């Protein structure tokens, strides 16, 4: 598939709540990369959270109420780029189900259709692989489950990382195994979540990489949280942070 948007694109950024508060540098890195490629970026201020936490907890009415806010915030947007595979899956895959037979179904589907996860947007919509980044180091890529299985984004992040100068990409044994974050699962079942994370961290450490890269900061929060306690020097980075470096 060729690029869908030749030339300049007006992009509305969806910065999920936890990225807004805990990882704002990820959002700024996305801005940097998109502007470097010559596109216009805007940030609709009415946005908050995609609604995934209540949705996953089973409280779909509350999730709909939150989702309606985002539908309103991005009503006039042409193209929405979202800074997380998981929140991206919420909008693209679960909004249509959440609003099935609801008066806002059409709008929910419209938002789903024009929303793209960051790496998906670069590779599949812009047709860009080389964003002019340089990052000296040895890194391994962790597939966030939602990006990987709900959105089918196995290749795009690797294609982008493959073009980064001075970066050595090492595949880990269990790249596709869940890190154990899972939203409220991580605090409802902390020991299961931790055990899963430990398996993941061991797989990361086996590669000998200095960095773990992912397109989901929520997985990285889990992985970094465990690595810190294990006193490991491996650092987590969002894909956008790597692509922003020159």
């Amino acid at each position, binding site marked *: 598939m060729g690029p869908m948007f030749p030339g300049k694109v007006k992009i509305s950024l969806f910065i999920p709540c936890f990225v807004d508060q805990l990882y704002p540098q990820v959002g700024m890195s996305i801005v940097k990369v998109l502007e470097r490629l010559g596109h216009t970026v805007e940030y609709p*201020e009415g946005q908050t959270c995609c609604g995934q936490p209540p949705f996953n907890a089973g*409280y779909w009415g509350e999730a709909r109420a939150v989702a309606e806010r985002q539908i309103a915030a991005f009503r006039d947007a042409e193209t929405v780029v979202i800074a997380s595979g998981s929140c991206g899956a919420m909008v693209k895959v679960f909004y249509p189900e959440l609003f099935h037979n609801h008066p806002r179904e059409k709008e929910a589907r419209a938002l789903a259709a024009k929303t793209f996860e960051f790496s998906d947007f670069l590779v599949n919509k812009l047709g860009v692989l080389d964003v002019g980044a340089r990052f000296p180091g040895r890194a391994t890529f962790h597939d966030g489950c939602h990006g990987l299985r709900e959105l089918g984004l196995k290749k795009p992040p690797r294609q982008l990382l493959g073009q980064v100068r001075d970066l050595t990409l090492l595949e880990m044994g269990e790249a596709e195994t869940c890190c154990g974050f899972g939203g409220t699962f991580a605090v409802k079942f902390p020991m299961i979540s931790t055990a899963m994370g430990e398996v993941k961290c061991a797989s990361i450490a086996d590669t000998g990489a200095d960095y773990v890269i992912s397109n989901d900061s929520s997985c990285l929060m889990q992985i970094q949280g465990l690595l*810190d306690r294990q006193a490991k020097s491996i650092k987590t980075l969002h894909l956008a942070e790597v692509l922003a470096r020159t």
Partner: protein
Amino acid sequence: MNVHAREFNESARRCAADLTHRGLIQKALAGYYTKRDENQGRFQSWSGARDAAAEIKWEAINHLDRYLEEFVSRLEARGTRVFWAPDAKAARDYIVSVARRHKIRSIVKSKSMTAEEIDLNGALEKEGFEVVESDLGEYIMQLRREPPYHLVFPAMHLTRQQISDLFYEHLGSEPTDNPEDLTAIARRVMRRKYCEADMGISGANFAIAETGMISITENEGNARLTTSLPKVHVAIVGIEKVLPRLSDLALFLPMLATAGAGQALTCYNTLYGGPRQPGEPDGPEEFHVVLLDNRRTELLADAEQRDALHCIRCGACLNVCPIFKNIGGHSYGTTYQGPIGSVITPHLRGLQDWKHLPQASSLCGACTETCPVKINLHHHLLHNRRNAARAATSPLEKILWAGFALMMRRPGLYHWAARLARALQPLHGLVQGTLLDPLRAWAKTRSFPRVAQKSFRELWRERKTP
């Protein structure tokens, strides 16, 4: 928290922290992954095969009434007695009554998860009948007085040493860690049991409507002996096991072997259709088929989750599930473990009592990705969560999520709350690790990131108005 949820939490916590157990399961599954991938490669297209299988099961389940009647009428035409069991008790009572009528002394049984589901062995033993499991893994678990650990590999969590000790204790055999010797020990016991037994009990992998036959796929040959030597046979079959045509087995047998055990085909594949016919030299004199509903028809009535009845009990979803691999099969406390168990147990045993199972998932979707009949497993976990919240909301949770929604619907309130959290975070050290620590469930094993000094929105505003 109900008793099932509490037991689950305790067992899951214990197993997740047990590195030896975790290592055993990982080791047991490593060989499976290699062989599974190798044998998936023998299919012209594994994904095409999954599509075809899902379509056949869709057809069978959506016309279950017709196919079941066809299955039964063909069976009955050969003199098989069919009993429609609405629930577990009816099935148990029927089988016990058959055993009583024939004054059965000894029963030999081949592997059946459906029999586990209705606790058939328990019911028969209570009535004084001796039941011996003839599948090696099941026999080991029977000696340990434990339920199967995994629906395909019942004793996968045990070492050879443990099995040798078990045989030594119960059978007085010489200690050995050679798998062939261990198998030979069990085989010696088993051969005697086959000859003594006057009743055999089996399950079914598939029920073929077109021919009225039960298909059993196995590696040990024990089901063949169980179904052919004793004079009375009872097969217990869940109603969802139906396949429309005999030719469907050409797909389903290799698919089940590949997904279930990483094999191209299992060693023995047999079709059973009834008692010994005139002129036949062997086979049971009486053949009973117990068709079990046990709330399957309620699941059938649920259009959203009906595809959970497509399950062929291959266990592939357990083998890839990171939850299963860390908490082990016994933590679930159910007949069916892993993702499929977390989907169907709330339907079979009650949603409110078992809603913790669908909650105990990171929703990674590895199960759905691997399922050979394409059950939307991890989305059904979400559906179960939604149904559970709808039916009986805990007031505290309801308030929490209503508050969350209230905040996230008002960007001003959200940003104010975020600033408050940022201001309070330096004080976190005062409560860290205590019962007042709101982050304790997280922070016991993981560091928590600092709330950023400036949110993205603030950075964005600064950037636009220099």
